[in-house]
């Protein structure tokens, strides 16, 4: 029977799992595969696992419970082992490495900071502050102007967008860095100009949240910081 694997914990973890559901339509029961010093939390692998809310939330709920009760290494979504022996083999082979990670994560939490910027506000700032861009924008409005002018306008604007957003991202990360134990930065995407996870000592959680709040106030108009956390250490497992 193949097994869906959620997380790895120390053998001493309380593993309160009774009232939680596993992934899949059938909400299969969670159980524990025990190795020598480590455990894995698993459930019967469902036939109908899907990358949709039901299963993502079930996966996430297990991680939150484990993390609130102790230390755990959350697996990414969707890992399936052939059987219990395969799980035990992984626990054994990786015992030293996993124990080390678990020790490092103890008493720390993840915060994720995402920055979104209202595009129109940003573009308006850019157009207002650059003569050349304003000129090209006027020349190409309502279908006027040449394709070359249009392309030049786009290139200049894209470069401005990127440099402004890179600077903002750097400013945000630099402001939070003194409070964190580790950081994990994702490359900027069209959705988020900054997407950074931070591993923070539990004791500093409040200070970190406050700093994010203060930081938000210093940011230009149209910029929003979205803070998630404290979370299980998805980005640091």
């Amino acid at each position: 029977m193949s097994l869906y694997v959620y997380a790895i914990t120390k053998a001493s973890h309380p593993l309160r799992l009774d009232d939680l559901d596993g992934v899949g339509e059938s909400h299969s029961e969670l159980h524990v595969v025990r190795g020598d010093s480590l455990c894995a939390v698993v459930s019967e692998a469902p036939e109908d696992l899907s990358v949709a809310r039901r299963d993502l939330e079930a996966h996430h709920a297990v991680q939150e419970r484990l993390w609130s009760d102790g230390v755990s290494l959350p697996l990414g979504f969707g890992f399936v082992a052939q059987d219990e022996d395969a799980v035990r083999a992984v626990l054994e082979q990786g015992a030293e490495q996993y124990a080390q990670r678990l020790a490092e994560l103890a008493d720390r939490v993840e915060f994720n900071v995402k920055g979104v910027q209202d595009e129109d506000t940003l573009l308006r700032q850019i157009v207002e502050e650059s003569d050349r861009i304003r000129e090209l924008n006027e020349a190409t409005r309502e279908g006027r102007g040449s394709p070359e002018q249009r392309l030049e306008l786009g290139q200049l604007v894209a470069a401005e967008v990127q440099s402004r957003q890179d600077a903002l991202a750097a400013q945000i990360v630099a402001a939070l860095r003194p409070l964190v134990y580790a950081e994990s930065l994702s490359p900027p995407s069209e959705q988020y100009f900054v997407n950074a996870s931070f591993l923070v000592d539990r004791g500093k959680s409040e200070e970190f949240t406050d700093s994010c709040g203060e930081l938000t106030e210093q940011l230009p108009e149209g910029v929003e910081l979205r803070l998630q956390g404290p979370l299980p250490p998805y980005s640091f497992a």
Partner: protein
Amino acid sequence: MTVTPGGGAVPAPTQGSGNLYDVLELVLDRGLVIDAFVRVSLVGIELAKVDARVVVASVDTYLRFAEACNRLDLESGRKAPAQLPDVMERVTEGGAKGKSKGALSGAVEAFTDSLQKGRRDEIESGERPRRGKEERREREREPVERGAERRSSKEREEREEREE
């Protein structure tokens, strides 16, 4: 069940579809990877992650920016009064697009949307026809379809609409 980030001394951030997506994105994208295990529905995971793809410098991007600048209403707070056709255009745009932020956020919203529909269906489980439709959609998204090239969620939504 709601996704409330953490639980403890720190006040939870405001709830909303954006926040839900923000957390689930981490669930999908991060976490320990164990090579000895098989990762199922990987193609689906790739599809969902397309929403957060890295910005690419390309002619398309440039033209999109040029167009977005052309569309800006630069008159507000400036000397020249807006002319009637401009006002009309603005009103129409505001109504139709609301806070549209470009094609990609559209895709993210589509993904979040499908997650939200999932929850609504659980609540209104008496509503069979709706639920059936959702389940069919879910199946259609399974590997058979995903085996093909990576499609944006938006394209997929549009295609499904045509098929229905």
